[in-house]
């Protein structure tokens, strides 16, 4: 028998009996950040490929989700800070070792870029839009001229944002479940699939829907592969990581992870995507909503389960 007790009775709020310092705002923010990254990635990619007119929803319309998602995400993040009056300290320094620091700067860039991109396409929704002030008109002309460069910035920063949502967690060696470098690409993939699903949901053009259904299917496959890969890594690693993986392999998070994230969020929409591509008519709303739901659940399960995983004494 080996029993370990804190006999002086430590009950620090949000730390004991196990860490629970990050609540719902963090996974929500990671999801919205990933979704925005996915949406902006495809917008920039297809614009740069010169497919602006073929894939109109992806390039011009769906990106409007991004600034909204980012603003809500940032608000959630801000809400979760406990020393709010000092949040500006984030923007007084860049610390490369701290993912949260460079992530904060990345968010600043991507949010600004997404607002500019939407401003350039505002006439999609309001054909008679008028900027009223001259300097705004000049700004629009300026950015229209450099739209290509803007698309490149968006493309690169969308990838950084997507990866960052995973690295933010994987950088914590104190929480063995998070401490795997697969999390960067895995969260990027999850964000991209959410982005593709949003485009399928919004698009009215059959060709565009089919393309993004195909893309979604491929990314879901990659996600599944990365998840298997992650468990292989855990199980071949040290005892702490074996126990961390155990949270999903019989432990308290097993059901939510496999049912909500893997089956409902990846496998079912994947099969439906496949059926759609084989010519059966599946209402786009079903796989789309399932992918978005799975992506959100993935963040929740990971953020919460990771805080339970710990080093053994």
């Amino acid at each position, binding site marked *: 028998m080996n029993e370990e*007790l804190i006999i002086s009775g430590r009950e620090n*709020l949000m730390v004991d009996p196990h860490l629970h310092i990050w609540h719902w705002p963090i996974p929500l923010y990671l999801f919205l950040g990933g979704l925005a990254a996915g949406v902006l990635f495809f917008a920039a990619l297809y614009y740069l490929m010169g497919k602006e007119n073929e894939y109109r929803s992806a390039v011009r319309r769906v990106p409007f989700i991004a600034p909204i998602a980012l603003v809500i995400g940032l608000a959630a993040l801000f809400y979760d800070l406990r020393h709010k009056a000092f949040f500006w300290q984030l923007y007084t320094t860049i610390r490369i070792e701290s*993912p949260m620091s460079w992530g904060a700067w990345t968010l600043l860039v991507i949010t600004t870029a997404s607002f500019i991109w939407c401003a350039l396409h505002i006439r999609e929704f309001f054909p008679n839009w008028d900027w009223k002030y001259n300097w705004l008109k000049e700004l629009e002309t300026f950015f229209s001229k450099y739209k290509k460069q803007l698309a490149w910035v968006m493309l690169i920063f969308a990838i950084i944002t997507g990866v960052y949502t995973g690295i933010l967690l994987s950088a*914590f060696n104190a929480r063995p479940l998070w401490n795997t470098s697969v999390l960067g690409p895995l969260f990027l993939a999850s964000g991209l699939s959410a982005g593709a699903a949003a485009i399928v949901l919004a698009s009215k053009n059959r060709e565009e829907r089919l393309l993004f259904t195909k893309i979604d299917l491929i990314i879901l496959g990659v996600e599944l592969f990365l998840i298997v890969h992650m468990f292989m890594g855990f199980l071949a690693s040290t005892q702490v990581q074996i126990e961390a993986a155990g949270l999903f392999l019989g432990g308290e998070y097993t059901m939510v992870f496999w049912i909500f994230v893997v089956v409902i969020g990846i496998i079912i929409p994947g099969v439906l995507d496949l059926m759609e591509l084989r010519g059966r008519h599946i209402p786009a709303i079903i796989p789309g909503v399932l992918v978005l739901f799975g992506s959100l659940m993935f963040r929740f399960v990971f953020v919460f389960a990771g805080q339970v995983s710990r080093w053994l004494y």
Partner: protein
Amino acid sequence: MRYAMAVDTKKCVGCSDCVVACQTENNVPIGYCRDWVVEVMDGTYPQLEIELRSERCNHCENAPCVRCCPTGASHIVDGGIVLVTPNKCIGCGACIASCPYDARYPHPKGYVDKCTFCIHRVNQGMKPACVAVCPTKCMYFGDLDDPNSEVSVVLKKRKYKTLIPEAGTKPHLYFLI
């Protein structure tokens, strides 16, 4: 200079005086603590072995809490003591999640708080409150770079361990075994 602490697990009786001393000295808010006592029981009756450890922040040399802090509020000062500047801390909680020892907690005022090795006392030539108050004198504090300091001497004489050295944090809280 490199401050360190050694705790004798054979002398500690688990009275928790160190915890109370710290709470009083540092005005730790009610319901929280910066140090705590762990009891590990091994074996089956009557072959039992008990280890008692007074634990706190390890003032790690390779401190993950300092690395992950986005603002630089968590920092290392001369002597290797890890501190938090309240007015730079945004309360994001990254450092709390990054500490394998769960040595930090969110102060009700919003910033993050933890053991300071009683730097305010140490700078005046005194010992940390927990060390000073221990009735069995089971804790040793001092400068590792000085071969004659209490802590250097006892670490030379005795066998010791650190907690979770495999986490790569290079802790400076030693446990004499």
